[in-house]
């Protein structure tokens, strides 16, 4: 199952002076249960793809399959609603979308939109807030009184409360401090281990190496590479020419290799590198 894109093209603001083509003939699959990363320079179309995955945008041409549902240019809102229940999309800076007067109400809002009773929605909200590390003392607070990192968690809990099978994260840790970033990445890892499919858009190659099992590389609206991170990051020069880069340790190992150190494959984590030094 999972998500499949077939021959997808997308043009934004069609028919306006701002019209522009963002995606060209994209074919790809996001496997069920995978942790799939998307990388690409600014303007490569990553965010546009994310918005296609949950039906926020519909393709101008081609089809997006989510499990057995197909989204095309002519899809009706009624059909797309089911897709939105399955695929939870966390935008960049999701805290800007908080609006309710209390944290609990904000998180319980989403599920009620999908026909869940108020009681059940609040039960879900409590559960998901606990999951993202927001303790009960905050439940009745105004979300705008929280710190940026806490607001981000509340917004993520709001998506989790809709119980999606697939969680799409568009640069979920952008703008957070290192501690907040690590805590969120750990949360997503746990969600993945519990069976959720995770789709991550990121600029942090170390995160791709540490967490993802598959990676898609985009450039100006086209898919140029895809595969396992350990394979993709062997292409150091190519990725650098695209201003994407590789994990720090991969670059470090490549520099040693250039000096004459024998390395068959470049490691993508620090642990792997130390292992190679030890056992050759």
């Amino acid at each position, binding site marked *: 199952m999972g998500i499949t894109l077939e021959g997808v093209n997308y043009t934004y603001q069609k028919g306006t002076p701002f019209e522009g083509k963002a995606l060209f003939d994209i074919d790809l699959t996001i496997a069920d249960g995978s942790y799939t990363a998307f990388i690409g320079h600014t303007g490569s179309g990553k*965010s546009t793809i994310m918005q296609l995955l949950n039906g926020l945008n519909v393709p101008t041409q081609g089809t997006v399959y989510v499990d057995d549902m197909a989204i095309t240019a002519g899809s009706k809102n009624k059909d797309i609603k089911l897709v939105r229940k399955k695929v939870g999309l966390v935008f*960049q800076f999701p805290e800007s979308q908080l609006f309710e007067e209390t944290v609990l109400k904000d998180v319980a809002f989403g599920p009620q939109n999908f026909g869940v009773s108020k009681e059940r929605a609040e039960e879900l909200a409590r559960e998901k807030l606990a999951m993202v590390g927001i303790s009960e003392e905050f439940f009745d607070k105004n979300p705008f009184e929280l710190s940026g990192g806490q607001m981000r968690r509340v917004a993520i809990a709001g998506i989790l409360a809709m119980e999606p099978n697939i969680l799409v994260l568009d640069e979920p840790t952008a703008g957070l401090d290192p501690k907040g970033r690590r805590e969120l990445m750990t949360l997503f890892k746990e969600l993945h281990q519990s069976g959720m499919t995770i789709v991550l858009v990121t*600029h942090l190659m170390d995160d791709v190496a540490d967490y993802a099992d598959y990676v898609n590389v985009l450039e100006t609206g086209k898919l140029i590479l895809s595969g396992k991170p350990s394979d993709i990051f062997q292409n150091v020069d190519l990725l650098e020419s695209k201003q994407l880069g590789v994990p720090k*340790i991969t670059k470090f190992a490549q520099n040693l290799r250039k000096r004459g150190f024998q390395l068959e494959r470049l490691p993508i984590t*620090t642990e792997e590198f*130390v292992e190679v030094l030890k056992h050759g």
Partner: protein
Amino acid sequence: MTNSIEVRDLKFKYDQEQEHYTLNGVSFHVKQGEWLSIIGHNGSGKSTTVRLIDGLLEAESGKIYIEGQELTEDNVWDVRHKIGMVFQNPDNQFVGATVEDDVAFGLENKGVPLEEMQIRVKEALELVGMTAFAEREPARLSGGQKQRIAIAGAVAMRPNIIILDEATSMLDPEGRLELIKTMKAIRDQYGMTVISITHDLDEVALSDRVLVMKNGQVESSSTPRELFARGEELLALGLDIPFTANLIKLLRTDGINIKDDYLTEKELEEQLWELLSKA
């Protein structure tokens, strides 16, 4: 060298009922042309400090001198002209319908002649790599692109002092490093003083001096290298541990002994290669 900014014993709280001071006796100085990074955990008082310097908040006690002139209620507007301030979230600062209008806004207010204004806007957009977006709507750009525009807006004003409050946080690592290097070049060219609040290790590494803030006070002032040698403590200060420090630690558990606690990537590469090529 003269001081561009001097801050003496600042005390501040947002609310009279607040138990502890948000800033509790903050003193430091920034030299003319210096690049000072301010780091510290959330709530340590970094943003509050720079808001006081820009006169956006008023201290309960203490003094602030900008280029030798004491900041008062009467001169706050004049002093603010010397300072370009860029916040983390540029959405709250956009006013123009297009990117170039937005960058021109401050210049227009200041009465810069049209011809000069066009030159400065063009230059500023080139510096931040956003020339191709001059006629786009700011609202439709990505977070990182918006931050570039906000920085262009500040640079176009040619202030003597630029204050960046996590102003590059939404940029990708490569783009951020490139932009910081560009900012450093502008600093050198115009002799600007830069204060930058950041969590980014690469940026801290490039700065002249680092101020660490903790619980509303200045915890320390040091070179980046001295700071990075503090190892695990860095986490508590809101920074990551440098990649090389982590690697050195892991290597040691495997019996590869690198003496120093912190080295640049190049230095570690040298040392490691020396060990490996002998083995």
